[in-house]
Structures are given as C-alpha cells and as structure tokens.
C-alpha cells in the first residue's frame, strides 16, 4: 500500500512538473510571437495602400 502510494505520488509529481514546464514554454512562445510581430511592424514603414489614403497636408 505504502509502496503503491510512493509510486502514485511520483506520477503526480511528474505530471505536475511536465505541465509546469509546458506553462513556462507557453510563456516563451507567446513572447516570441509578440516580439516577432513588433519587430515586423518596426521594419515595415507605414505606406498608404489606397489612393487618397495619404495624410492630409495642411498648407
């Protein structure tokens, strides 16, 4: 019974550790996506896409 409970506790620990590192991995992925999007936005200059969509110039 005690031996079985040691085995059970070990399995619980492994499951918890795997999920905890999965959460940590998720953090890295979210950061990578956000950083990639930000750096892409910085690289590309804002170009008017439609005719007439240019900023109005005050004279």
């Amino acid at each position, binding site marked *: *019974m*005690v031996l079985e*409970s*040691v085995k*059970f*506790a*070990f399995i*619980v*620990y492994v*499951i*918890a*550790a795997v*999920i*905890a*590192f*999965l*959460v*940590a*991995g*998720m*953090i*890295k992925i*979210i*950061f990578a996506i*956000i950083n990639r999007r930000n750096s892409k936005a910085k690289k590309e200059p804002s170009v008017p896409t439609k005719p007439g969509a240019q900023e109005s110039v005050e004279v």
Partner: protein
Amino acid sequence: MPDINVLQLFQGIATLAASEPTIAISRIVLILLGILLVYCGVKQILEPLLMIPMGVGMASVNAAVLYLSANSMGTIFIDPLITDPAKLIDIMQINFLQPIYTLTFSNGLIACFVFMGVGVLCDIGYVLAAPYTSMFIAIMAEFGTIATFPIAIAMGLTAKEAASIAMVGCADGPMVLFTSLILARDLFVPISVVAYLYLSLTYGGYPFLIRYLIPKKLRGIKMDLKKIPRVKPGEKIAFSVITCTVLSLLFPVAAPLFMSFFLGVIIRDANIAPFRSFIEGPILYGSTFFLGLILGVLCEANTILNPKVFILLILGMTSLLLSGIGGIIGGYIMYFISKGEFNPVVGIAGVSCVPTTAKVAQKEVHAANLKAQVLPYAIGANISGVITSAIIAGVYITLLR
C-alpha cells in the same frame, strides 16, 4: 414566577459540567487557545487578519454551548454536519453564521474569492521574466506536497485524506481548503485549521531553515537585476488568458481556482480601477475576515475532536518542512547551473505563501549582505508556486475524487 436555577441561567457552565470530561477539557483548552490566538494576532506574532477573527470565534463558540432540547447540546453559530435540505433551510433561520457557511464556505466560493484577491496582488511579470527558473524552483518546493502523501498513507489515512493534508506543503490556504472540501469533507475543518495555523508560522520558522541550510556567504550573493526584461501588460494578459484556458481544459475540477486567480491577474494588468479596488478591498478583506471567523467557529470541541487530529498536526508540519527543504535544494541546483550567480535563498520563495516566503527570502538575504536584492526573482518563484500548487491540487482531485 419560575424558580431561578443558576445552572439553567448560565447554560454555558451547565453544559460544561454535564459534558464528558474529554469534551469539557477540550472546550476549556480551545477557549484558552482562542484567547492565545487573539493575543498572538494583536502582537503580530501570527497573521492578525486571520488570527483575530479565528481566535474570537474559537473562544466564543466553545463557551457558548447550550441545551438545544432536553437531551441535546449545541450552539446557535453553525452546524457543519447538516446535509438534509429541509433541515438546512430550518437551521439557516436559527444559526446566525449558517448562511455564510452554507453559501460561501462549503462550496469553496470563499477560497476562490481569496484566490481572486491573490491574483490582483500578484505581478505576474516576474514569472514571465524568467519562466523556466521560476517554475523549476516552484516545482522543487512542492516536494512536501508529494512526499507527505505516502507518509500519511503509512500513518493510516485514506488516499483522499492523505492528499488533503499533503496540500499543506503548498502553503496556500485557499488551495488546502478547496482540496479538503472536495476530497475529505469529514476532516476539512481540522485540516484547514492546521493549515492556517502553520502558514502563520512560516514567517517565524523558515528563516531558521534558511540559516541552517545555507551558509552566510551564499545567502549574501548579489543577483543581477538588470537581466530582468520588462514585460508589457498586453503580454501578461495574453499569457494569463491562454494559461487559464489550457489549465481549465486539463483539470476542469480545479477550474474555479484557475479562473479566480487569472481573472485577478488580468484585472490588475488591464488596469480596470473599479474592479481592482473592489477585489483588493471588499472581496479580499471580507473573505479573509469571514474565513478566519468561520474557521474559528468550526473549532467547536464536538466537531474538531477527532483521533486523527494529532496525526494531521504532525503531517502538516512535515509537509511544510519538506517543501521548504525542496525549495532550497532547487535554489542550490540553480546556484550550480548558473555557476554561482543565483542566490539559493530564492528557493524558499517557491513555497507559495504569497508574499510571505518572498519577503522572508529578501529579509534573510538583506541580513547577510546589505547590498543584495533578490525580491523580483523571489516573487517570480512565489507566483509560480501558486500556479504549481493549483496544478497539483487539480491532479490530486482529478485522480482521487
């Protein structure tokens, strides 16, 4: 005119005299313990927010036993053992704390409210700054939560009871309450009381553990705070929403805990001022007050007297001690991996008693080296501890329910 009988007039004394010696002695001991808790709370030796209402409730309920009928004794505070719906409706109109107990305590709502408050207080950015390190330390600091389970089985508890008392090692009151309510309803009162009493002691006990296990030279290691990247609120919110959804998907039974915690985090980072002040103030302080009061009132001698209480006291202490040791071992492993740049004291903050263990870590580091700062890393490990504790609670409840 009726005859005046002194014992009929002072029923608290009459029931004390008429009770079995064990119950009578227990009532007196619990009254004195309640007064001691109030004293320790007022003197700030133990957490005053919990200990003052708990102590007053404990002293009062054990003094206020009266004759409910010719043959039965009880109180007009709470009846935690009642299950029949018709009787429950009746008793809700008699026992003044019964509505709060039935509608907020026995369904875990109060634990979720406290967890929501913890979420609002936590800056999750410190976890996101060093996610793997924080999670590693937190999972090492769950050692007590895991190792106490087989010890409890060896001491004669059932698997559900063993898991509930082992959760004391995660040093998170609402989590212990939530788990024991689902897994060991008969023992949830003594387990929750043991948990909250011991959690109050972490502030006094863990510094000795740190000083005993970590030499002063290592305690004074200065950590580089410039390495910590800045995390934007949008990133924190994205992480919270995704993690909450994924964890709820994996463990639906612990979803109320995940949702409450991450909702608090999101409200903090979304900077919704009215909700934030509502959760930080009325919700958190109101829940803490009623949590302490109800736990104290539940410590009535007839309810709490259980042959397993002594075993629970030993196991609760073992669990917290092993978690502290596990956290420090995690700190040492990080110290060796980082080639001496990581302060092993941070390991104790993996035990998720937010923010007590993080403050203990910083205090001990500061005492060893006035220039050393570890608080951001300690808070990261601390908040990760909350997440890993909720995960372990989810695993235990799902597998043993």
